[in-house]
């Protein structure tokens, strides 16, 4: 009995997800070897180590009893929140943001793990609050999940880490919309989205006769934030200053062409025109050296990963599992979308890593933890039927 359960659970492994994950991580390490070529320190070897650390964590997460996981959701969420708050007092400041804990030789980014805690908590809420007679969620019932998401998102935002906060907000939004809100909620959200676009248009695009121009929120933004939005909406402005990175990144991507300049041959990369080329801008290295076709290949890998994750969600036996799977998928999707969108000028520049491609232990471990959750959900179905 025990033996057959084992065999069966192995047969229910989300192979597509695992395959896409390993392939993407391998591409990431290969790409990192080029991004960190001499005279940089060769980061690809530590990235391999991070991958195995992440895989070990994922294995643990995958084999934890799902019920235990569900019960642990609240403590995990609270511990992570506590870590974020503690960051305010003990955090290490780098590049203007307090995002790191320094533990001996390790630098840990709590926000990366907060995402997971938040997803578990949301999933638990939707598991517990499910009312088969009343499947659609109105405003009142959406308040608790909104609060669950807003607290950590707010804490991340004030670090300030706009990229991660945005990603968390988009992920939450995806999960909430997935949870089947009422039509009224759809309408209100639609109106709010339009209002946001309207404010943007009013503050940045519309030519106004009056000076100073009438703005809704622009005057409240910090100068560098304002410059990023301006640069995003008008890529040709201030190329030497605030828009320099955006432009250099676009040059790197655009100059890759169909086939790329070749591994280790990227000039933008080799000559360090790119900021953060190991982490947030890793995709521009890949695009410059590998070209359009392989970029599409990479997107296909991400698509397979996402669809595999949704497959896990579709076959989940309970709502907790389904919401965890969708949440992990949404998290990965929004990170990919935001990161590549930023590197290619589609979105304003915010700091966000590209899952499995960017250099960094916290990012790698947090993504692989998500993958572990997917495996856990995938396996849970078998055990619960036993």
């Amino acid at each position, binding site marked *: 009995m025990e033996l057959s359960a084992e065999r069966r659970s192995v047969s229910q492994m989300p192979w597509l997800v695992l395959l896409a994950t390993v392939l993407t991580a391998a591409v990431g390490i290969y790409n990192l070897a080029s991004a960190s070529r001499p005279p940089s320190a060769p980061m690809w070897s530590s990235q391999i180590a991070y991958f195995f650390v992440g895989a070990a964590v994922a294995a643990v997460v995958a084999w934890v*009893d799902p019920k235990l996981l569900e019960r642990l959701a609240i403590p995990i969420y609270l511990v992570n929140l506590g870590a974020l708050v503690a960051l305010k007092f003990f955090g290490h400041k780098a590049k203007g943001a307090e995002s790191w804990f320094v533990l001996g030789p390790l630098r840990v980014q709590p926000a990366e793990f907060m995402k997971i805690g938040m997803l578990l908590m949301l999933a638990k809420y939707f598991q517990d609050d499910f009312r088969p007679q009343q499947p659609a969620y109105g405003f009142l019932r959406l308040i608790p999940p909104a609060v669950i998401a807003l607290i950590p998102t707010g804490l991340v935002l004030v670090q300030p880490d706009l990229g991660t906060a945005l990603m968390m907000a988009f992920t939450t939004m995806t999960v909430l919309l997935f949870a089947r809100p009422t039509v009224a909620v759809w309408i209100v959200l639609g109106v709010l989205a339009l209002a946001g676009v309207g404010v943007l248009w009013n503050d940045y695009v519309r030519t106004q006769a009056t000076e100073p121009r009438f703005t809704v929120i622009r005057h409240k933004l910090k100068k560098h934030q304002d410059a990023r939005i301006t640069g995003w909406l008008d890529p040709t402005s201030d190329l030497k200053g605030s828009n320099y990175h955006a432009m250099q990144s676009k040059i790197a991507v655009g100059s890759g062409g169909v086939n790329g300049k070749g591994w280790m041959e990227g000039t933008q990369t080799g000559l360090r025109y790119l900021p953060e080329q190991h982490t947030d801008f890793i995709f521009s290295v890949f695009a410059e050296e590998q070209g359009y076709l392989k970029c599409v290949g990479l997107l296909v890998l991400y698509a397979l990963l996402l669809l595999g994750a949704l497959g896990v969600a579709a076959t989940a036996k309970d709502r907790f599992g389904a919401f965890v799977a969708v949440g992990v998928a949404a998290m990965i999707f929004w990170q990919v979308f935001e990161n590549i969108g930023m590197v290619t000028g589609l979105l304003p520049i915010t700091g966000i890593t590209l899952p499995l491609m960017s250099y960094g232990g916290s990012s790698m471990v947090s993504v692989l933890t998500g993958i572990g959750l997917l495996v856990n959900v995938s396996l849970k179905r078998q055990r619960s039927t036993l």
Partner: protein
Amino acid sequence: MIKLGQKSDAKDLRPRIIGVGVFFVVGLLVLSINLYRLMVVRYEEFNALSVDNQFKDVRLRAPRGLIRDRRGEVLVDARPSLDVFITPAFCQKCAAEVIPRLAEVLQWDEEQRARVEALVKAAHGPQRYQPLIASVDISREAFDQLLARQFLLPGVDLEPVPHRSYRAGPTLAHILGYMNEITQDELTRLNGSAERPPYALGDYIGRRGVERSFEHELRGTDGWVKHVVNARGEVMRDARGNVLRGGQSVSPAPGRNVVLSLDARLQAEAERAFPGTAGAVIAIETKTGFIRAIVSRPAFDPNEMTGRVSPKRLGQLNQDPLQPMVFRAGAEHYHPGSTFKLVTLLAALQAGTVTPSSQVGCNGGYTLGSRRWRCHNERGHGLVDAKRAVQVSCDTYFYRASDQLGIDPIATMGKAFGLGAITNLGVAAEVPGVMPDSAYHHKVTPGGYTKGMALNTAIGQGDVNVTPLQLAVLYSAIGNKGRVLQPQIVQRLESPDGKTLEAFSAKLVREIPMTDDQHRLLIDALISVVNEPGGTATRIRSNEYTIAGKTGTAQVARLGQVRLKKEQMDYFERDHAWFASFAPAEDPELTVVVLNEHGGHGGSDAAPTAAAVFAKYFELKKADSFALGEEWIPPRPPKPVLFAKPAAAPPEVSEPGLAGDVPPPPETTVQASPPAPGGGQ
């Protein structure tokens, strides 16, 4: 553990999972479409930008052309100088640590240190990646010391840079000029909107002399190479340390060589033979106007002026009462004294007021109205004709001639010879001098023109002022039967490999009409000055060739503006000694003018220098024609003359007519023996 009743069914979520899947796929499609737009549609544009990014145009300096003498001897070339550069962007703790360390090793004064600090501080933006010159031409020891401490000097580079080397030091300083750093204004003006600006900040540009006038030819055109640079502008190297290059490059076109008409050997002799503290020697080809030797003393050292001169030293040079920066051969004017009398004589001959044979009795002076103009020989010269008047430099003869003429015919003749206007030598600053006429005096003299002014002018005093160069042109024209030539010093331009690119030829300015008789008279008179008993320059008579010349001793106007120390006073009150000459007299080849400023008297203090230059000229000519295997035709020796012991000293003139109360300086007695180079007869 698992309670079946609590188990929720997730099957109702499936359609929405599909919805989320569609949303994800659409999102990724948006990304891939955007990538297509960037990487395929706009590839060319971004690729061009990435190429622009990675290459930086690096200038390859064109070697500057050489300056040579007529025989190819190098007068100016380049030598490596060790220069110190600071790149502000890489210079950490620049003002606090690096500059003080440099200042210590290089022994900068406070001023120099402040200058470098300001320079580093002024650099902003991309300029911070441009190396700035902090110090030029440091000593080998300082270089070694800095090299040993280089790890303490971030952003400091030591580089050998070619610097101009003026091989003969101060010799020819005013002609060759010097170089120093280009100013911001010049940069703006010279570069204009050129895509590849010819000059960059920190470049040297020719100042004065040939370096300035032929800057364009000497400079050449810089080349360009594309170096691979990183985002910080640092030049990238391959594993072996070679600079990575890319794309097309343009080789620098070296500057052209400027070949001067000077003969360095004759120049050296002129320098050696000139005894004065200050003054000028000019040796010019009589029939072409090309300068063979030109001395202007005192001079500065162009090596010192090129780059390393400190403001303090510059101040010293500018305040030196001897004014070493002034180009005395052309940019300072002097009373010509008796050397001017030839102009008066020719004007009178052409006006018909005197004839070759008409005589004037000199009783030691000339009375005009109530005033008496004294001849330098108070006892008088007796009856003198034109030739004799020139030979003994009788003032009375010329007073009378100018009394009959008035000032204007004399001025007209002087101007025809080029006086009162610059000679257009071209390579150095010149002053026009003064050739006064009645209109001039009406304008500048209180009370206007009076006849006395003509008398002063006639003997080269009064307001007439000439530069040594003008006098050289004038005497060449006399030797050349009225053909006035523009003096030139650049003979040709040649390519770096020595091929002639452009050769300059003699330039005739104008021709003064004169009859053969008039010309003959002038020549004979000048020959008699040197070669016949009683002449004022017989001491330099040569037995191998005939020198024709005229001495002059010019009274100096008082120097009222400059307060001088007592020991200097004497010097600055002394007379200028002139000698203007050409040889061989019957077919002149070389004109030599010597001005010995405050040197004393023409016959004793100027003429011997000219004699030495002529001697060297003919010696070199002979040696060169042997070397070339040409037939040597010696110049015709002068007519043999019997020199008797002179009864009276035939002194020479320097009568300041206007200041009649000032006694004329005594003329040294000209020895009536022929101690000319070449031995006695």
